[in-house]
């Protein structure tokens, strides 16, 4: 849609907004990520963390931002993916790409099955079901020490060189580029999906399920589909976490993790794939910085910010972005008409 020639008459204006800037905007985060790779060697593992969180946040954006699925259980998918990748590398093969694929597919399957079961419920019941799934997995990982290492975490993973060539080195060069490449693939997929007819219908379901039923949309199946895709993505993020740190801790499956990813999404702004980039990167780096000053300052700031956003910014920080976009759209619209 971004590159449509102008001669097909109707869609102009806001639809095309970004057409002129899109290439620059699209390149910017990736160029920055590459520059970071060459200039910030000491921070590569932190950078890898940021990339993984971006991916995880993006997955939540598909479910929560676009489809309006208010879940507190997204860490279940992230942690499940991480454990799958970790356990697979210990018991089957250390090849990272195979492991990542397995983690992604299994997590998608988990999302599909649980989605089928719970997506016909709404509101508090749905929230509780997502919490129940999260707690179930957490307690399972906690007690199944033979498989997961319990609360010591999953250790003893050994990851083979990527593509048989690139070792996962101590400084995290390989892990960084590997994660960045996976993020890029998922980004392209997500970008395609949210602009597709499917994406539009999912966005419609968030806005008005009643309307979508009236135009013949199988609402439940479509929610199951987007939830499954979101799960696959979260599972990939978890898999990357396992591969890059060669460790999976119980905290990946905690409610705290669900809370953090929601914070990142709200910070960056929902319903705009790039929001995940902004929110997660700011979160990871600012947290790292403030943690050196005082380990709990950040929790305080984040908590306060969340309260303030809900109370004083109807619709979250996203509304600021929306207002800016609307204003810009009006400006551009005027420009085109005159």
């Amino acid at each position, binding site marked *: 849609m971004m590159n449509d020639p102008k001669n097909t008459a109707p869609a102009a204006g806001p639809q095309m907004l970004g057409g002129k800037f899109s290439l620059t905007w699209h390149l910017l985060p990736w160029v920055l990520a590459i520059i970071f790779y060459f200039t910030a060697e000491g921070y590569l593992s932190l950078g890898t963390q940021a990339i993984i969180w971006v991916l995880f946040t993006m997955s939540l954006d598909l479910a*929560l931002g676009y489809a309006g699925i*208010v879940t*507190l259980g997204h860490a279940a998918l992230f942690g499940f993916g991480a454990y799958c990748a970790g356990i697979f590398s210990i018991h089957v093969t250390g090849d990272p790409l195979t492991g990542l694929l397995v983690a992604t597919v299994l997590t998608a399957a988990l999302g599909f099955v649980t989605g089928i*079961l*719970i997506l016909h*419920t709404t*509101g*508090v*019941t749905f*929230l*509780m*079901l997502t*919490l*129940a*799934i*999260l*707690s*179930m*997995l*957490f*307690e*399972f990982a*906690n*007690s*199944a020490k033979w498989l997961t290492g319990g609360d010591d975490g999953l250790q003893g993973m050994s990851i083979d060189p990527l593509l048989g060539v690139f070792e996962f080195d101590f400084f995290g060069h390989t892990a960084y580029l590997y994660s960045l490449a996976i993020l890029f693939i998922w980004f392209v997929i997500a970008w395609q999906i949210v602009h597709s007819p499917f994406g539009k219908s999912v966005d419609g379901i968030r806005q008005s399920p009643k309307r979508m039923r009236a135009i013949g949309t199988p609402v439940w199946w479509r929610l199951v589909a987007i939830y499954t895709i979101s799960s696959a993505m979260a599972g990939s993020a978890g898999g990357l976490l396992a591969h890059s740190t060669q460790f999976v801790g119980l905290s990946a499956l*905690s*409610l*705290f993790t669900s*809370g953090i990813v*929601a*914070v990142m999404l*709200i910070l960056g702004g929902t319903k705009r794939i790039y929001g995940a980039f902004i929110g997660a990167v700011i979160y990871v780096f600012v947290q790292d910085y403030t943690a050196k000053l*005082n*380990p*709990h*300052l950040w*929790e*305080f700031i*984040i*908590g*306060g*910010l*969340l*309260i303030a*956003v*809900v*109370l004083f910014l109807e619709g*979250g920080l996203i509304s600021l972005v929306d207002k800016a976009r609307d204003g810009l759209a009006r400006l551009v619209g005027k420009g085109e008409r005159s």
Partner: protein
Amino acid sequence: MLSYTLTVLLDGISYGMILFIISVGLTVTMGLMRVVNLAHGSFAMIGGYVTAYLTQNGYNFYLGIVAAMIVSGILGGLCEMTIYRPLYRKGELAQVLLTIGVVFVSIALITAVFGAFPYPMIFPDHLNQLVDIGFRTYPAYRLFVIVVGAIIAGSLWYLVEYSLFGAKLRAAVDNSNMARAVGLNVNFLFTATFVAGSALAALGGAIGAGMLSLEPTYALKHIVLFLVVVIVGGEGSFKGSFVAALALGIIDTAGKYLIPEIATYLLYIAVFILLLWRPQGLLPPRSAA
């Protein structure tokens, strides 16, 4: 064998009583105000810390509990009037985000003041002893918890069923618009129940510290358990919460004795299936039934 069963039962009941005392406030607020209050555990945690701090500084345990209930009650009331009230008309996402924000802030504050490690509660000597209960000796502490829980449940039951306040409360839980229409001061009712709920949570947090130990992540760690009590019992249902809390306590305790490896996640699987089967909970209040 019988003595073993009875022991498990007593342990389970005492644990269930704690869950009930802490969760009952959440039941009312979720039934009455339709707010998903993830921060309810924070009030229990603050209550526990206040009591523990006072006892460590030589004050009487029971005095500490009263102080804790007052502190949490006031904090709860202030929160209700300032940050919760705008939430009533917003969706779940806003409620989840704001109350998680409150949880984060409370965790940060508790850590800043009391440190990141578990904070010990000093119970009075007479609770630390064993009492002969016929077939065996049993910790006085757990008996105390059961008695307090029974008193709370009994007086709440009386209050809700027979007092004017209770009648108003039931009316408002059943239909808050109707209650407003017939002239009940719903705002006052909301604040009052929030204060009471927070104070009860503080009580539960304080006397329950022997089972749910005090640490900064308390507020987040146990909130799922409290929510399970509320949702399984049926939002806004006192009887439901009481039954659910005791059942949860007994099942969880029995599970930990008998099948320690898998007990906890079996519990959540059970909750999951139960919610799919009865999304309104076991004993929903009349309006939802």
